[in-house]
């Protein structure tokens, strides 16, 4: 188990390094440049040259990369020449709030999706199952932007009972100053997840309910509750565990559509605006964090799967 995890961590480290190299190369291959995007069309060539020199853009790309890695190792992610903030400040201002919003929507999704999926499985191929399936497919195929807009029009304008924007404010605790402001963004963000997770749970539960061990459990006279929730659900949740691990990057990356719709200044928007502005230090900082989050998510998914399913460990030893 330990060697399995060490091997996965080693692979993860290589992936992160490769991501930073690729991101660095791609950014510098973009047409136009940071200087023009930052200084605007009025900037003179002298100003452009000065900007490039001050930011090291007049050096070869590999030299820039080595410098960048050196700075990161000293905890310096650079300075945003558009936000007038250090990258660390820009990210630390947004990341906690983004994670709170994403976590809340994930928790809501799990709380609703698992019971829904289980219920559909045990009542499969009946009226309610069909209704929920159609609803899930509808929710899954509706663009999140449209869904959010619909909710805003309904609950902020037609029935003005909820604020049309996410909580504002600088500090993390201010997220909870007005809980009603969390409702629409959290619900909008979780709808698609509820739809997809409930489908996974249903499908996995249906597969497992047809297994022989379930029949054995019932034959032993166990209660239906124990059969479903103790024996079947544990096995049925394996795909969801993997999904949750892979969902970890989303906790960090934020959701651009939700952020632009609900006026939530989060990581998704930071990344988008930085891309628009060619704000390389911020782009690289966010990319690095997302790369780390992604590999951590993947490693965590492997780990949880291995914990939950002993056969994985056996396969690793084989």
């Amino acid at each position: 188990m330990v060697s399995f995890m060490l091997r996965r961590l080693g692979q993860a480290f290589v992936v992160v390094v490769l991501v930073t190299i690729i991101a660095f190369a791609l950014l510098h291959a973009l047409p136009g440049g940071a200087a023009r995007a930052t200084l605007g069309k009025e900037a003179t060539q002298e100003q452009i040259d000065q900007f490039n020199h001050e930011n090291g853009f007049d050096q070869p790309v590999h030299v820039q990369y080595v410098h960048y890695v050196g700075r990161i190792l000293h905890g310096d992610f650079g300075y945003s020449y558009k936000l007038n903030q250090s990258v660390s400040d820009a990210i630390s201002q947004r990341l906690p709030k983004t994670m709170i919003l994403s976590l809340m929507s994930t928790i809501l999704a799990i709380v609703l999706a698992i019971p829904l999926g289980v219920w559909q499985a045990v009542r499969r191929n009946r009226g309610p199952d069909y209704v929920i399936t159609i609803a899930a497919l509808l929710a899954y195929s509706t663009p999140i932007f449209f869904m959010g807009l619909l909710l805003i029009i309904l609950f902020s304008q037609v029935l003005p009972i909820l604020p049309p924007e996410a909580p504002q404010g600088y500090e993390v605790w201010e997220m909870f100053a007005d809980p009603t402001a969390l409702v629409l963004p959290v619900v909008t963000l979780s709808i698609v997840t509820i739809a997809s997770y409930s489908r996974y749970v249903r499908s996995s539960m249906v597969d497992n309910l047809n297994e022989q061990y379930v029949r054995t459990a019932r034959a032993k006279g166990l209660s239906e509750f124990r059969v479903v929730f103790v024996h079947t659900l544990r096995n049925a949740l394996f795909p969801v565990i993997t999904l949750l691990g892979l969902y970890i990057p989303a906790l960090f990356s934020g959701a651009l559509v939700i952020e632009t719709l609900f006026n939530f200044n989060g990581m998704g928007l930071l990344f988008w605006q930085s891309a628009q502005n060619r704000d390389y230090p911020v782009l690289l900082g966010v990319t690095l964090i997302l790369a780390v989050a992604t590999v951590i998510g993947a490693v965590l998914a492997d780990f949880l799967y291995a914990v939950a399913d002993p056969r994985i460990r056996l396969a690793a030893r084989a």
Partner: protein
Amino acid sequence: MTRTTARLGRALIGAGLACALGLSLAACGPSGGQSGDSGASGSTGGDKVVSMAFRTPNWILPISAPGFTQGENAIFGTALYRPLYNYKLASESNHHIDLDKSLGEAPTFSEDGLTMTIKLRDATWSDGKPITTRDVEFWWNLVTNNKDKWASYRKGAFPDNIAKFAVVDEHTFTLTTTQKYSPGWFVGNQLNKISILPQHVWDKTSADSQVGDHDRTPAEAVKVFDFLTEQSKDLSTYATNPLWKVTSGPWQIASYVPNGQVELVPSPTYWGADKAKVSKLVLRPFTGDDAEFNVLRAGELDYGYIPASNVSQVSYMEGKGYTVDPWYGLSITYIPFNFANPKTGPIFKQKYVRQAMQQLIDQPTISEKIWGKMAAPTCGPVPQPADKMGTMDGCAYSFDPAAAKKLLEDNGWTVVPDGQTTCTKPGTGAGQCGADIAQGTPLTFKLISQSGFSATSKMMAEIKSQMAKVGITLEIQEVPDSVSVSQKCEAGAECAWDLSFFGSQGSWYFPVYASGERLFATDAPVNLGLYSDAKADQLIEASQFSDDAAALKAYNDYLAEDLPVLWMPNPVYQISAYKKVLQGVAPQDPLNLMYPEDWSWK
């Protein structure tokens, strides 16, 4: 299905409903969303707070820094620090100076036109100290010793064009120029750069050092500038730093959240007559147009804007108690031709081609149908006066596809409607295509346009369609930042663009005096297509240096006809929407500054 399973199903439904109910209960609370007390606007008869959509300013030092010259910083700056001159384009005052909002009186010129004498008004800093020429000198010393760090600096322009700066007394100083300039140009486009800084508070090299005459030594002036710049980079202290507590404008910072909400309150010791009439100004940033418009529609903003994509909602917003007021800027919109492109440059150098292309752009229709009347035709390099806005008065070319087709045919091109028009009569004689245009050359051009603007995409589609009718093929490539990928082509470097559009919010915004030395003069910094014409240079120079008031008109008339670029519909700067009970907002400043101190509740 067993009974147990049925019970389980019901239990699960119950659990789901409980979760949903929990959400509903949370949703039944009072509507929040208004941060601070901005919701209590004058429209509801509450206190006199005004909440407005406004990007978070991120530069406070009133010396512009590269990368931080956005409009929000200029508005924020002038709210806190009055410059030497603010301008009111509509006023008949001397050089359009808005005296109420300026620290200086109108300059007087010496007989030789070289020396300007400027008197300061009786004004004070917020700490009660008088504003004097020492404060002007302080600014002068900082910028002249730190030109490379000042965003407004252009080699050869201000302050390089000043031979002598001299303090006469506490309230009078003189500027002597290196040569005679057009007074209109100099006052409008050069003196607008002068800020006045509180020397008695800011003249220090570190937070702990004593205030002194550091600025009078070049090396120390650099240290002072660096210190102030460093302080301006510390966003989190904008509301608390003692440096920024001393202001000369009608507002002071009450609170500041980096990338978030900013609250301004009236300066209790403001010296001017235009004191703020509301108790607080809440500047609320938005992550995008949709977020802003949702909040505006919910009635939670006193001043906001209708995104161009929602122009159809104008009457709805008016019904919700808002005044909708298109904000026209002193701007022009255009598509540069890339005269330096080795392949297509020779084609663009033929004036008849430019004329034909211009005649295929139906500016009035595009402005009305695509921009929803929120754009007006551009006729030439000088923006149209307000009374002619929206008309084609002064345009040398109207929409005329037949004339465009004839022009091409008369000059050696075989026009194939909806096909490929090619040069069939190469040569430089009458009726031939022109120099360096080979037999069979097609009229196919790559147009770099802006992505993210639906009206722009529609407009390009319309123009492409019209051009196709005379066999001109436009290959439109949309990119987020079209300026970056359509820079001047240097000799030997790759040159891939033919035409470029970056005017979804106007291509170019002018200061008071709309001259073209930065746009259309040979080697001008923003002459992306490298247009070069001796007569145009001469007229541009005349508008800059001569005191003949007709010089600007002569320059405009010539370039309007010569077509250094394709003139395009000029979109409004913003479709503003503000509560009907909020007065003093109109007329909105064509120079794109805002003066909320003039706003009040009915």
